[in-house]
Structure formats: C-alpha cells, structure tokens
C-alpha cells in the first residue's frame, strides 16, 4: 500500500482532464498501484458527473433528436465516423502495457553508470518537451545529488529508495521541483525501478555538474 500520493489538486486536474499528458501518465501509473487514490478519483469523477448533470445551459441549440437518430440509422449498427467504442468494464490495466515487456526483468536497459540504468520511453511515446523513462538503481546505490529546473514526477514500480525528504516504496508517487535538492538512494535489499516524468532537464550539483551538458535534450 503506497504512502505517498499525488496531492488533491493534481488528482482534481487529472480527473477534470486538464493535466498535461505526461503527468497524467504518472498519475495513471500511480492509480494502477494505489487503491485509495483510485477511490478518490472515482469520487472526483462523480463530481464531474454532478457538475455536468446540474449545469443549466441557456440558449444552447443541439441537433434535433430525430435527426440525430436518422444519422445513426444511416450509419448502421457498425462503424460510424469516429465515435469511440466504450470499453467493457474490465480489470485495471497498466497504462504502459503496450510499451513495456510483460515482466520488468525483460526490459532492455541502457547502462548509464555501473549502478544506474535507463529505459528511455520519450521517443516511443512520441513526447516533446518532456522526458519519460524508467530508471533502475542497483540496490543500495546512490544517484548523484541534483535539483530540477521543472517538475520531476516519480512512481516507484518496484523496490524503493530514500532521499533527504523520505523513504518511498512500491506505488509511491513523488513530486520534486527546483526547490528540492536531492540524491536518491536505492534501498539495500533490491534494485529500485521507477517511472520518471520530467518537464525540464535535471541539474546535477557538485562534481557531477560536469554531467549537465549531457543531460539536456532538444
């Protein structure tokens, strides 16, 4: 059971559908792993339902119902333009199911240092202006101290890590920005795998600042 969650306003924006896509992915991944936030989003969705139902539109003209049905009849029961098939209520899916191998062990990692590996999803997800990927930190290893220009969202997928502000385990959702400076360290007993969504480059501090020019992307 995760202990660190997106704040209420982030969940509100997610449920309203106004949160940017990459950040919504991080929230969706957390929801996949967190029962209590899933329950909270259900409530927020009903808030949306209530607001829609209770709204009182004035002077809004829509197509007449009979015209609408005539269109439906013409299209037949099969395909029409682009109306989406609403999926059957089903088991929860990992939002990245189409982009990751079935087992995390089968990921083709790209080793960055001896102890840190990355699986960059940015290109496969077709994202611009953000960087999305999985990070694997070997058990007990430490990521050099860094801060962020923008916001970094992290969801722990397996194992755990600690930093100056806390200890995080599977399912936890961690948000860091320029006001935080941290050096995450994987917990001792197992490798830590995280999903990370960044909306601006990391800035490494100290000796590792030499890494900075390599951490930019277009």
């Amino acid at each position, binding site marked *: 059971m995760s202990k660190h969650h997106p704040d209420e306003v982030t969940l509100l924006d997610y449920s309203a559908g106004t949160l940017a896509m990459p950040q919504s992915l991080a929230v969706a991944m957390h929801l996949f792993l967190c029962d209590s936030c899933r329950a909270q989003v259900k409530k927020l969705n009903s*808030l949306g339902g209530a607001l829609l139902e209770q709204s009182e539109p004035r002077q809004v003209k*829509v197509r007449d119902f009979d015209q609408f049905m005539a269109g439906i009849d013409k299209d037949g029961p099969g395909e029409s333009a682009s109306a989406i098939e609403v999926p059957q209520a089903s088991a929860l899916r990992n939002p990245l199911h189409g982009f990751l191998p079935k087992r995390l062990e089968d990921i083709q990692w790209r080793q960055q240092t001896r102890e840190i590996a990355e699986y960059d999803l940015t290109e496969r997800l077709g994202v611009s202006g953000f960087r999305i990927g999985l990070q694997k930190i070997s058990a007990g290893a430490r990521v050099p101290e860094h801060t962020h220009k923008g916001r970094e969202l992290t969801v722990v997928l397996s194992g755990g890590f600690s930093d100056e502000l806390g200890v995080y385990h599977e399912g936890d959702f961690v948000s860091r920005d320029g006001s935080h400076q941290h050096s995450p360290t994987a917990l001792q007993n197992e490798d830590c795998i995280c999903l990370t969504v960044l909306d601006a480059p990391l800035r490494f501090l100290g000796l590792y600042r030499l890494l900075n020019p390599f951490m930019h992307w277009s």
Partner: protein
Amino acid sequence: MAPPKAVTSKVRSMSTDSGDKSQSDAQYWAELLHLVARDRDREAFRKIYDYFAPRIKAYAMNQGISQQADELVQEVMTSVWRSADKYVDSLASASTWIFTITRNQRIDLLRKMGRMKAEINVETEDLWQIPTEDSTVRSIQALSAEKHLRQSIGELPEEQMIAVRKVYYEGKTHQEVAEELNVPLGTLKGRLRLSMQKLRLMLETKEL
C-alpha cells in the same frame, strides 16, 4: 420502432418519485440507460439525449472548443447509444459515466487537433480508464458516496465552488482561472486545496 406502451409509462412514472432527489435522479437515468441497452428503447434514449446533449455542448463551449462542440455531442451521444450495455450501475451513476465518456472524447478531440500539450502515444482509454470492475472499492459504497458527494458540493463555500467548477467544467488552467477571478495563483490553489480537503472530510464522516 415504437417502444412498448408499458415501458414508456414506466419511464414517465419514475421521475415523479418523491424523497431524496439526487438518489431518484440517479435511479431514473440508470433505468433509462438499461432500457436503451436491453430494448434499444428510443423514447428512453430521447430523454437522455434531450437532457444531456445541450449540457455536453455547453461543456464543450465552456472548454473553449466551440467549433467542435457539435462534433463532441455527436460522438458522445453515439457512444452512449451504442455502448449503453457497457454501463454498470454499481460502478458509477449514469451522469458520471456520461461525464467520463465526454471528458475522454474531449481529450481525444484535443489530441487530434494537436492541442494537448506534449502528445503521447498511449491511448486515452489507458490514461483515463472508464470506471472499471474494482474489487477493492466496494460498489455499494461507491454509489452512496456519490449521493453524499452531491449533497456535499452544495455545502462548499461559494468561492471554492466557483474555483472547482471553473477547473472542472470549464477545463481552464489554474493560471487562467486565477486571472479570471482576479486573485493570485497561490490564492486559487489554496481554494482548490481547501475545497478538496473539505469534500474529502465531508465524505469520510458520512461514510461511517
């Protein structure tokens, strides 16, 4: 294809139930959706259409996509007609189900237009999953929580309610809402946070 008389009269009588209004509304819409699913009942669907289509259009216009408002109505109502059998009343109220379809199709429209910041290839339905079977969230609880939520919304202070409505129903960024209300961004975020905490608190006390 005219609906059987008995069904139509049943539809009509449902709305006259007295007592808890939000509860009876929820039952009313759920029953209509079931009639659509089971009997392809056009009169039942007409009631849903006449009520929700203008609201979906107003939602789109509020969201700043007036040009696509009719398209959104068309797609959402087509989905509701075709997929009424996918609605599970123990998972969400009908209006919540319609809201989630509307929200997702609005997102799809924005994606098609390339207006959603930082496009991402994951399906919208995977990022915003429509109410799923969820053994961990007891469904009876979900519906009674919905009922309480509707009551709780009315108890929010007006300025918090306005902030929530603008973010939710008008799809505005916090910056835009703050400018519109002429308050600093921090104040707006504070109001949103307070309202969420208040709703959470009200729901917790009532769920006991």
